[in-house]
């Protein structure tokens, strides 16, 4: 489903990626572990094609970094769910509107939006907070909204970039448990983190990355 093969990439403001090899199969849960600055975020950017390899290739759900056209990138991203440490929520909108936003921009019909948003909010346990403004929520709740927004497009994989970085330990566990639950329903997950503790005892595939190289 996702294959990154022998990728080197340089980009402004970073060390660059030296040799990346990574694959994620449908339904798999993979941890990408490495210290800050090792290139974890860049690997995720390769997948959602925000940066491109200088050598090697990235294949995602039938799209190939060597052949993809610029205008196809939005359609690739609709197949992915992306979550960040800083949530990237719209603070002037409610929980419901934040989640609905990703369906609005993909021209989904209003009735369909309502159905899917309410379903995904129930899935992440936020139905009761749907009318709250996003800034009124705790960090853990905000991250759940971000997960709901990423899930509402029914992606083939969730890409999670240090998503527990701004959370207290209790919320961290909750979020990882939520991802486990989502994964159990069939959505693949690639979670980048510097925190080894999160991985311990979870018995998942782990890919280590150090100085732009996967080990």
């Amino acid at each position: 489903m996702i294959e990154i093969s022998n990728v080197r990439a340089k980009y402004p403001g970073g060390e660059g990626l030296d040799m990346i090899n990574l694959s994620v199969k449908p339904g798999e849960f993979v941890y990408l572990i490495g210290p800050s600055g090792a290139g974890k975020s860049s690997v995720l950017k390769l997948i959602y094609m925000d940066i491109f390899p200088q050598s090697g290739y990235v294949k995602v759900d039938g799209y190939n970094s060597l052949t993809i056209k610029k205008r196809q990138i939005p359609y690739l991203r609709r197949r992915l769910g992306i979550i960040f440490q800083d949530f990237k929520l719209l603070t002037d909108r409610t929980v419901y509107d934040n989640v609905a936003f990703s369906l609005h921009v993909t021209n989904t019909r209003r009735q369909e939006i309502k159905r899917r948003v309410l379903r995904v909010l129930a899935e992440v346990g936020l139905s009761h907070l749907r009318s709250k403004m996003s800034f009124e929520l705790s960090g853990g709740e905000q991250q759940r909204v971000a997960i709901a927004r990423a899930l509402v497009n029914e992606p083939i994989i969730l890409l999670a970039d240090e998503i527990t970085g701004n959370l207290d330990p209790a919320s961290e566990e909750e979020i990882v448990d939520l991802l486990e639950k989502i994964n159990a329903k069939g959505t693949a997950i690639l979670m980048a983190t510097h925190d080894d503790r999160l991985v311990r005892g979870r018995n998942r595939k782990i890919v280590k990355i150090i100085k732009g190289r996967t080990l």
Partner: protein
Amino acid sequence: MFSGIIYSIAEGLRGLRRARFSTTVSVFTIFLSLIIIAFFLIVIFNVRFIVLQIQSRMELEAFIDASFSEEQIEILKSQIEDLQGIEQVNYISKEKAAEIFREQVGHDIFEILDENPLPASFQIRLKPEYRSAALAKQVFENILSLDGIDEIIYRHDLLVLLEKYMHIFMLIIASLGGLLALSSIILVSNTIKLVIFSRRKIIEIMKLVGATRGFIRRPYIVEGIFQGFFGGGLAALFVYFVLKIVNIEIPDLILIDQRIYWVLVLLGIIFGFMGSIIALRKFLRY
């Protein structure tokens, strides 16, 4: 698709409200530029009208060989009428020429001379498209080459002069108008740039969740078009009322082509559209 267009228009209008101050500035700039451009257009229209009037009064006077009989003159007249660029040919006989002389000078020619020296002639009016210096000269040469035409008088130098000054005048007006248009477009582009900057977070999220390039860009284009439409509409209203007042004070002073109001609105929309396209090219590469 339909909901996408509604979204773009709604977002465009929301953008106008969000950036009220800069929107007002660019609407006002378009308004001012278009008023000055309207002034130029009206001046051009009126000057052009005057030039056309002068050109339409410009006639060629071709003098006929004195030895030609009435039948030969009749044939010569139809030969001239058949030439390209001729609108009308009037025959002025020797007697008619003497009559015109009396009307113009106030004396009978026979009071001054024993005989009538005035030759018979044709007064020739050219078709409007042949009233330029170059084409009039061509017609002039064609007529002169006909057997029986002694001489032709027409104000070639005046035509050349008129065209030359008209050309320089148009060039100056067009350059000033172009500069004004450019400054309007730059200002609109700047306003849109500010809006894009203030909305960079939402744009980033849109990109991440798979919004297409067109979907992200459309609201800003709508915004530019609305700014242009308001600026153009205000300019059209302003010009309409000013001209109404001027025409009440001094009727028939200024000639107006009624299409000018639509031209102003259209120009406003073009300025707004161009401004937003430039801003998007520079600040929203995606």
